[in-house]
């Protein structure tokens, strides 16, 4: 007699990779997979996924956004959960129902996707109650709350709760941790000097915190702040929260290269 695998203990999760993790920092996606598997999930990476559609959505192109939304909804059909390492991209999935009229069958499917889609720290903490973090980090970090994750999805305590399980890690909160870093997708190239003022304020708060590492949950914001820290010649490192939680900090930090890592060691 065969027994059915216990679905509830091994939920099938579709990884929403996100464009920036795919292109800039695959280690973030691998760290996400590692954490999901540690939490007992079966992880798959649907081939049909591309971008969440934010560039079109934020530029007012509703029709294109809806096309991308339909593609993403189809790509993640059949997964119990959809999890990604970004509050912003997962937040975009939560906007999908607004793109379809009330009687459109896609509306129901979009609502269904929304109910299954979670940012990684939120998923680990609120959905699967996972706290078996096995990692250590020798350093003092400060945490930037990215806007969409914070205000749209309510991600605030979850990453901090998980980070508190990391050995030797100290968290120094910066002033205005919840203030936008000035990335804003296309905003940073459409209004570069305003964006620069915002990120300059941010890097000031980051260095005032006394931390040696900036941690956050969204690569867009992290690329922006890391890029500014590097331009200012500051030695503060920047990492995505999943890299620390998964104990995958042997790769160079954002905007750094192998030889700098070697120098640091």
């Amino acid at each position: 007699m065969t027994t059915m695998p216990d679905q509830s203990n091994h939920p099938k999760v579709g990884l929403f990779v996100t464009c920036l993790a795919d292109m800039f920092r695959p280690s973030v996606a691998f760290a996400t997979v590692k954490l999901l598997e540690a939490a007992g999930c079966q992880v798959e990476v649907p081939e049909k996924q591309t971008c969440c559609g934010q560039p079109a959505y934020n530029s007012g192109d509703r029709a294109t956004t809806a096309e991308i939304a339909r593609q993403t909804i189809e790509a993640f059909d059949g997964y119990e959960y959809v999890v990604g390492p970004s509050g912003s991209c997962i937040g975009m999935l939560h906007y999908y129902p607004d793109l379809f009229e009330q009687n459109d069958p896609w509306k129901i499917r979009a609502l269904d996707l929304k109910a299954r889609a979670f940012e990684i720290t939120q998923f680990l903490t609120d959905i699967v109650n996972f706290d078996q973090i096995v990692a250590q980090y020798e350093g003092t970090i400060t945490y930037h709350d990215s806007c969409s994750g914070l205000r749209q999805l309510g991600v605030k305590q979850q990453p901090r709760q998980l980070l508190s399980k990391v050995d030797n890690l100290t968290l120094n909160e910066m002033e205005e941790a919840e203030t936008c870093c000035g990335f804003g997708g296309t905003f940073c190239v459409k209004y570069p000097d305003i964006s620069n003022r915002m990120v300059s304020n941010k890097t000031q708060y980051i260095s005032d915190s006394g931390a040696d590492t900036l941690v956050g949950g969204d690569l867009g914001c992290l690329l922006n702040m890391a890029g500014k820290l590097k331009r200012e010649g500051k030695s503060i490192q920047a990492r995505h929260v999943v890299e620390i939680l998964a104990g995958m900090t042997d790769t160079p930090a954002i905007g750094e290269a192998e030889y700098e890592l070697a120098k640091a060691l």
Partner: protein
Amino acid sequence: MQIKSPQFKENARIALHNVELQEALGQFKHGFPVNRANAIKRLPEFDDLRDAGRDLKNHIIQNLDIYLEQFESKVIENGGHVHWCRTAEDANKTILDICKQVDAKTVTKGKSMVSEEINLNDYLEANGVQPVETDLGEYILQLRGDHPSHIIAPAIHLNVEDVSEAFHTHHKRPKTGDPQALMKEAREVLRKQFVSADVGITGANFLVAETGSTIIVTNEGNGDLTQTLPKTHIVITSIEKVVPTLEDMSLFLRLLARSATGQEFTVYNTLSSGPRRAEDQDGPENFHVVLVDNGRSEMVGTEFQEMLRCIRCSSCMNHCPVYGAVGGHSYGWVYPGPMGSVLTPKMIGIDKAAHLPNASTSCGKCEEVCPVRIPLPKMMRHWREKEFEKHLTPKAVRFGIAGWAYFAKRPALYRWLARSSAWFMQKMAGKKGRINKLPLAGGWTDWRDMPAPQGKTFMDQWQAKQKAGE
């Protein structure tokens, strides 16, 4: 006021280089937002009040005609007059006619953003009536030929030196840099104006339908003198300010003061209910309410309807990181910050105001602090959609989106694009892990480095691992 919204980028660039303004803005963010946060800590039910405020405003907007007519009949019953003005021109003309009827030479004015919206001061002056602003900030701006850069702290962009200079030039008195002395000087000059004015014009924060009353809140008391001393009192206000009862009004007063300045209550809350009665000690002989529409009724039933809930507290701009970087004048018209970025396109046209709803990171802070929970980022996006539908979106953006969308709709091609971009950027970065200068991304690399991709894309690495059976 001259529309400068199309030059938003240039305005912002100048503002970012204005050392004095940057200093003022730097201090500003430690003022109102901190006071608001402290005030809210002392009122645990604040969020419930916000829900109540939102729901009540929604009810009012659904029944705007009923409450406005009730308000009108009460004002008439009290011996006053109500003037319905569809456009800014109608409102200006109506006010000038009233001034002419009483042969007015000078009018004192309490602070009113609606009067800024319709450009009342210039209109009156051009027609031989001298307006005198009595709110200290507005008075300073009037002397300087300047305009408000904030809806409740109009002269926030100026420093003491600017005020000292303006007073010295216009009052012909010895120069002083002492704020207390400057305040005393303004009080002395304005006192004469209050007494000699023929007409007093004030705005209104709310209109109470059940009593036919208008209310203004100030921290200086200038509103009281403006409306009680002259023989004629004109209230200029807009249609969405009506509330059903005095009880409802007090709900909004609680939300307003805390959201605006972090006060529990504004210092002066002055109600006007018609001209003076026989038994009254003071008050005007004539009482007029000028109700301005100026595009508001057209917002009912559209995606912008919720904007009519706005009670003009300024909390959105006080907390906006973009406003905090560029100040109010950059927005180029009367209403700055997030609320302005939603209202201005309605009033001057999206073709002229397109930058405003675009110059936002959609961070959502404005919605988080709005006392009546207006989804401001969503509305800014609605304006971007209008802009896109009307083919007003800049060509470079349209082409960029179309090009990106071509790939994003084709997963295999998208993989190729990611792979090629990662490869290209890595070549650009060399051994450094970051790029100093990137073609087509000058907006980024002029100010910051571009971190380089790690290597092969995740999708390529994942597929290789799957094939290898890892």
